[in-house]
């Protein structure tokens, strides 16, 4: 929805990289995300000194050490809470939260809920690899039922959380989804998230080469991707498979259906209206492989951000009240003692 104007970059991608050696496993999807972020920052017109990356604990949460910006590697699950303090203390800062499926949806699920509900103006990048990597491979809240791991040798029994559905339920006003290897599309998604005034939730499917390798292959493999991915574009028909298939809203069942597009006739195909929450609710949980995986900006319907509301209320208060500390100390009933034996004058 937001108009993205082309900005002449004042920085180069290199300016956003630190001298620290990157310590992720070779082949980790995090490298690709880091590269895409560093490549996108100049195009946003962002300034390193005005940017803060805040993370929790986990593989993804090492991210701030590699960004030549201000950064805070906090404690497990708490990045949204720390970010809230940073943003409220200085709303001028660009604040990015880096988290994972365990950090953001398990130990820190509560903070994520409230950050999204309050609509604080930050970008949340949730790296979803459906596994606990840093602790050596236990199943995570997004692991599919049956995932075999050191803590679930017989296969996990829990039903997984769907991050974008969680975000929508929490009241997020911007929800997007992308893939670590989607170097072409990711900058666009990041830009949209950056320019959205409010909490921008971005789920990034990220491959863990060591503990959960290939878990997303069914829809990330280059060859089958056109059939298995649908990239959404506001105001455009929901098409995939090189325009030969589309999504239709069945008005009887109120469900989406995959339809063939013959001779370019898209009359049956639903047009993506990213402000439509009901459709967003279907997109975030489309069953795979019956449906393609929905990617891009799934939902965007901005409202005033939490920090903006606070600033507005502060301005209102400052324009109507005087900060007189001496008077504050005397607020309410007080009295003056003039000497002993005490003579007392009362004031109200």
């Amino acid at each position: 929805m937001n108009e993205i104007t082309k900005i002449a970059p004042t920085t180069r991608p290199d300016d956003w990289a630190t001298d620290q050696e990157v310590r992720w496993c070779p082949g980790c999807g995090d490298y690709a995300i880091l590269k895409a972020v560093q490549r996108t920052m100049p195009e946003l017109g962002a300034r390193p000194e005005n940017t803060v990356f805040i993370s929790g604990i986990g593989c993804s949460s090492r991210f701030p050490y590699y960004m030549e910006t201000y950064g805070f590697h906090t404690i497990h699950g708490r990045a949204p809470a720390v970010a809230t303090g940073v943003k409220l203390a200085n709303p001028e800062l660009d604040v990015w939260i880096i988290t994972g499926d365990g950090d953001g949806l398990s130990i820190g699920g509560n903070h994520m809920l409230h950050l999204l509900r309050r609509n604080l103006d930050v970008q949340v990048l949730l790296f979803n690899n459906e596994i606990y990597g840093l602790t050596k491979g236990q199943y995570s809240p997004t692991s599919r039922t049956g995932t075999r791991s050191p803590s679930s040798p017989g296969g996990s029994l829990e039903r997984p959380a769907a991050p974008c559905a969680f975000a929508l339920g929490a009241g997020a006003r911007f929800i997007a989804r992308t893939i670590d290897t989607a170097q072409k599309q990711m900058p666009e998604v990041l830009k949209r998230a950056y320019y959205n005034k409010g909490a921008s939730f971005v789920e990034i499917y990220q491959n863990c080469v060591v503990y959960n390798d290939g878990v997303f292959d069914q829809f990330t493999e280059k060859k089958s991707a056109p059939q298995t991915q649908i990239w959404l574009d506001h105001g455009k028909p929901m098409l995939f498979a090189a325009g030969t298939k589309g999504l239709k809203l069945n008005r009887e069942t109120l469900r989406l259906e995959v339809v063939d597009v013959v001779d370019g006739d898209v009359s049956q195909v639903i047009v993506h209206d990213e402000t439509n929450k009901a459709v967003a609710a279907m997109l975030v949980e489309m069953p795979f492989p019956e449906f393609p995986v929905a990617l891009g900006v799934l939902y965007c319907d901005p409202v005033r951000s939490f920090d903006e509301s606070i600033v507005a209320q502060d301005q209102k208060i400052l324009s109507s009240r005087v900060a007189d500390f001496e008077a504050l100390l005397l607020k309410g009933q007080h009295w003056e003692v003039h000497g002993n034996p005490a003579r007392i004058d009362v004031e109200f």
Partner: protein
Amino acid sequence: MATATKSIADEIDTSTGIATPENVVVRFAGDSGDGMQLTGGQFTLSTALAGNDLATFPDFPAEIRAPQGTLFGVSAFQINFGSNRIDTAGDAPDVLIAMNPAALKVNLSSLRKGGLIIADSGEFGERNLKKAHYAANPLEDDSLGAWQLLSLDISRQTLEAVKPFGLGNKDALRCKNMWTLGLALWMFGRPRAPIIQWLKGKFANDQLLQDANIAALNAGHAFGETAELAGPLKQFRLEPAEVTPGIYRTVTGADALSLGLVAGAKLSGLPLFFGGYPITPASAILHSLARLREFDVTTFQAEDEIAAICAAIGAAYAGRLAVTSSSGPGIALKTEAMGLAVVTELPLVIINSQRGGPSTGLPTKTEQSDLYQAVYGRNGDAPMPVIAARSPSDCFDVAIEACRIALEYMTPVMLLTDGYIANAAEPWKVPNVSDHAPFPVSFHATPPAEGTKFNPFMRDAESLKRVWAKPGTPGLMHRIGGIEKGYDTGNIDYSAENHQRMTDTRKAKIDNIDRSIPHQAVEVGPQSGPLVVVGWGSTYGPIRQAVELVRAKGHDVAHVHIRHIWPLPANLGALLKGYARILVPEMNTGQLKTLLRDQYLVDARPLNKVSGQPFRIAEIEAAIMGMLNQ
């Protein structure tokens, strides 16, 4: 000074019937819905306006609306006031005002023998008696023979007084507390004007309730004036206490603490950020500060205790004076984040309004059992300064001191107060903020020399505090976090020698703080001698009074009261070693005692009480005498 031993009856002038005691202890007790805290608060104000020194003890149930008439629904407010120095809310009430049978039953045992009971006989019906587990009406048998009894139908008197206003029975009876307050004002010769003024403000939008409450107040007062009472109802006259000239108000600990934080922010030149989550008895601080936004105060009600402290840490990183506040269980939740503040060396004030524990414990009752938690309760070697307030008004100065230490040393600081201090009120000589030395903060803003990297852990050679560079500053981009950082670079560094060095440095920085805090003073008594009573926090009043009583009997006993719990004042060890015996009264099972033994290898002996109630003076006095006679 004696509050524990004297009888008011001894001091009645038989020609006028007016008693002139040095001090009186009054307890208002009723159902949670009877408005006893409000009545007590207004009586406190009128007492302060009369120039008496005073101390109060609000004691209310954890239940918001406990079933009417029950024993666990009793709410009480005790006030001790007089023409002498008052440090405690008094051991035993001289006057008990009981608004129903349950209030009488719960509070009778603490009433001084020979003391006066004023009971609302209108509430002593069969139903209420049964709820209070009375088999017979105590107002009508001789079970109250050890006390003086004035049985009045306050309910009926109130209904008659407010009849002209046509209120429903329920609303009319809600004016009972004002009738009772009117009677109390008469008993102590107090003017009604300030209370009427207050009622006009409180019911500014409801003329009917305003008129009815004022009428009830006046009627209670008139009852005392006109009733031909041959019985025990007497008037009391107390001379004003000797107090330093100046402007005074009453203040609760929670209010004084909030004002102190705002003052600390002013003295530092930084805007204040407060992250909190509702919890008894700490919420009052959040409420106070939320009303002070025009003083550059941001309050954030977080989703939980962890988020409250983490948001404060984030705000500190971004350059604010950051504060979080809770009570024991909430502090426990914040513990991991405190470690983060320690290792990232960010300034932060953490307030613990202690309550009875463990776990949920006694949410509305007082205790000081979180000292171990404050000093020792974190993973890893995570030293943190700890300071404690001794009284409601002391909270103001202690809050400023906590802000100063946090900012001058770039460290989280734990400020201990408790449920008693938070809710209790006392007269407060309104301070002049300019009496406090400012501690302005300067952020690091110099970019590193060409070809070098900025090290956020660059330190002041003297204080060892690290530099504070806030986001938004060009050229100083840096990353901090919970992982150990290199002493010379600020980058991640797991090496053995670096961790040793950083741990030693963090410890030395906190140990150094004893250079900037005053030497421990002796409150009263000799600098060395047969016995010292050592306390901290809200036991100040009863210890002080007990020591005075023992001294009056000729024993050269001293009182030392510690504000700086960690690090301890530099001279404390030598000071304590000058006394033959050390007694440490605490509302816990001996936590400061352990700390003193550990730090100084002294034979500190505990006196412990964990009943949820403050110490009585007599309890401490007996312990001192027992120890002297050993």
